């Protein structure tokens, strides 16, 4: 093979997705997951799923749509599809400035008022936790803050994602360099042990976190999440349209105990479509509080 074989290459490798097929697939994805694929990503979607059609021996996107709806392995396929249309980008101590202010203003406040009430029970919800770096970071922060006294607390960090592949990785708790790009060296040394496959999270942190699959578009499932004082949902609602954002934010509101806090990603804001929360702006980070 030489340069001459390049001249016969073309970009198209997949069956073409017609406008009707795109609309159908897009509608299906939206109905199930709340994820909104903008029209301008039609080619990107075609490209990302094209190889899958070939693997499944399907000839058109219409066939793929019905496979997603009717095949015996449709649940598995949905997970695969979600992975192709979202990103799982995450890391330990992601947005450390935000986490610092979270610790100093939110966490401290919540822990102190629980202690005063003599109810040392803390529930945190990490919604859209990807491969687990975020909930484990919160576990580490609690250990750092409470030290030995952590044994007197009942702490539960409920961590969910739609992607079971990511959740399996999270449960394994073994990470490579990429997950630590935003992590202070001393935290790695203190809370991880080196293994042949990477760095393993310490069991005392792992114990605090329970992972489970959950679709944020599943209203009933959202109701079953234990009521929390703190919700983290960072870099997830970016995939949703306004309607879905509203639904999810309202579900968070219902889940939070009075005085609880919602923490969104650095570049996310609910300012434009929801005023139920009180925004609290600090240098480095911003939070939403449910008053009461």
């Amino acid at each position, binding site marked *: *093979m*030489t*340069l001459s*074989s*390049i*001249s016969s*290459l*073309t*970009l*198209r*490798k*997949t069956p*073409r997705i017609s406008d009707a097929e795109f609309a159908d697939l897009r509608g299906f994805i939206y109905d199930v997951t709340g994820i909104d694929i903008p029209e*301008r*990503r039609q*080619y*990107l979607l*075609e*490209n*990302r799923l094209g190889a899958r059609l070939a693997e499944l021996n399907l000839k058109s996107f219409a066939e793929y749509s019905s496979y997603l709806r009717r095949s015996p392995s449709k649940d598995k396929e949905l997970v695969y599809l979600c992975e192709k249309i979202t*990103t*799982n*980008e995450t*890391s330990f*101590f992601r*947005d*450390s*400035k935000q986490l610092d202010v979270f610790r100093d203003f939110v966490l401290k406040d919540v822990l102190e008022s629980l202690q005063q009430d003599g109810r040392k029970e803390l529930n945190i919800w990490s919604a859209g936790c990807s491969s687990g770096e975020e909930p484990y970071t919160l576990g580490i922060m609690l250990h750092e803050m409470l030290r030995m006294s952590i044994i007197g607390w009942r702490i539960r960090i409920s961590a969910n994602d739609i992607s079971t592949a990511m959740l399996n990785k999270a449960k394994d708790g073994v990470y490579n*360099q*990429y997950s630590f*790009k*935003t992590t202070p060296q001393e935290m790695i040394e203190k809370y991880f042990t080196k293994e042949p496959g990477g760095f393993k999270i310490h069991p005392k942190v792992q114990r605090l976190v329970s992972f489970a699959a959950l679709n944020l578009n599943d209203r009933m499932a959202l109701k079953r999440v234990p009521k929390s004082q703190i919700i983290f949902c960072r*870099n997830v609602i*970016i995939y949703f349209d306004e309607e879905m954002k509203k639904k999810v934010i309202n579900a968070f509101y219902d889940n939070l105990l009075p005085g609880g806090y919602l923490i969104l*990603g*650095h*570049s*996310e*804001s609910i*300012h*434009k479509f929801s005023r139920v929360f009180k925004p609290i*702006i600090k*240098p*480095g980070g*911003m939070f939403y509080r449910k008053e009461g």
Partner: protein
Amino acid sequence: MVLAKDIKGADGGVFLAAGTALDDAAIASIAALGAPFAYIKPNPAFTSPEKDLQRIESFVRYYFQYVDPDSPLFNELFRLVMERVFEASQKGWAIPCEYERQAKSVEHLHDLFFRDQGASLDLVKHETSLSSFPDTYFKIKELLDSPASTAADMAKVVSADVSLAAKLLRLVNSPFFGVAGRVDSISHAIALVGVSELATLALGISAIKFFKDIPPELMDMETFWKHSLRCAVFGKCVASLLPGLTSERFFTAGLLHDAGRLVMFKNLPYASVQAMLYARSSGAPLLEAEREILGFDHTEVAGLLLEEWNFPAELRSIIAYHHDPLLSPAPRDAAVIQLADILACGVEISSTGMYSLPGMTQEAWNLLGLKTYDIDKLIRLHDKYFQELTSVFF
């Protein structure tokens, strides 16, 4: 497997050289050194041209995943880029790994405001209140706007800025500009290319000075300005293929087409990196990632910035609409820079390219009335002149 790059020892010297075979002993010594990672590549004895070409193809396809796979323009560009990457790799260029193509994290950098707590105009106001704009710029602008000014006035103002005048002369004397004979004064240059053409070039070059203190973690300035210069070269070349366009302003527009990005990098560094990470992992072009993560994009920022500076309106709209030419008051002009930018990104795939190519609609392409074989011609022109022009600017 062999090492693709040297591993440095604690003293900064070469601990293991590129090309070292990674047998058990070598791996053990790397582990003992504590190197966090190493760049590796397949042992040359086990690779084949077919495998190379497959790797190159999947590497190049990444950049084309967002665009219309049936577009004649992008199909042609795809093949030309394949050839380019193939040639580069024959000459020893190694396809960068994912780690190298990721934006670097910037946990220590602060943003001016949070999402929806400020808008693009706040960025621009903040930026222009901090840095003052080069004096020469305003003088040139004043002369351009005044009907009574003469070529001699312009020559005087431009010549007074020694470094600007030197750059302009080198530019005009470069084979790329191709004027006959040697031009040794600004007034001679004006006589050859015209007052407003030369003034436009001078505006663009003096504006570059405005952008300093961009966090190096976000963007290496040399890479940034090289991309801008490529776009300038392509802009002028594309314009020269179209009837009835003066090409100097497209050179200037190309130079400044991404200026809005610099303002974003400087004032919203953290969010900008989030956009870069998002672009890379989702396969969307950086433009779209900016819109999603920040709520606005670099063309909007550039439009406001150039308005603040009173930039000539036609240049402003070329830059502000270079990703949406059909919305521009002068769609064809904006389409020239849209194409120039895409071609610049295309030729960078074999060096510094990071993100998926932004698209160009068939309608916008049709405005230019070019043939697909012109793409090859344009890239050859770029290759012929680009290297030499870099010495004028850097």
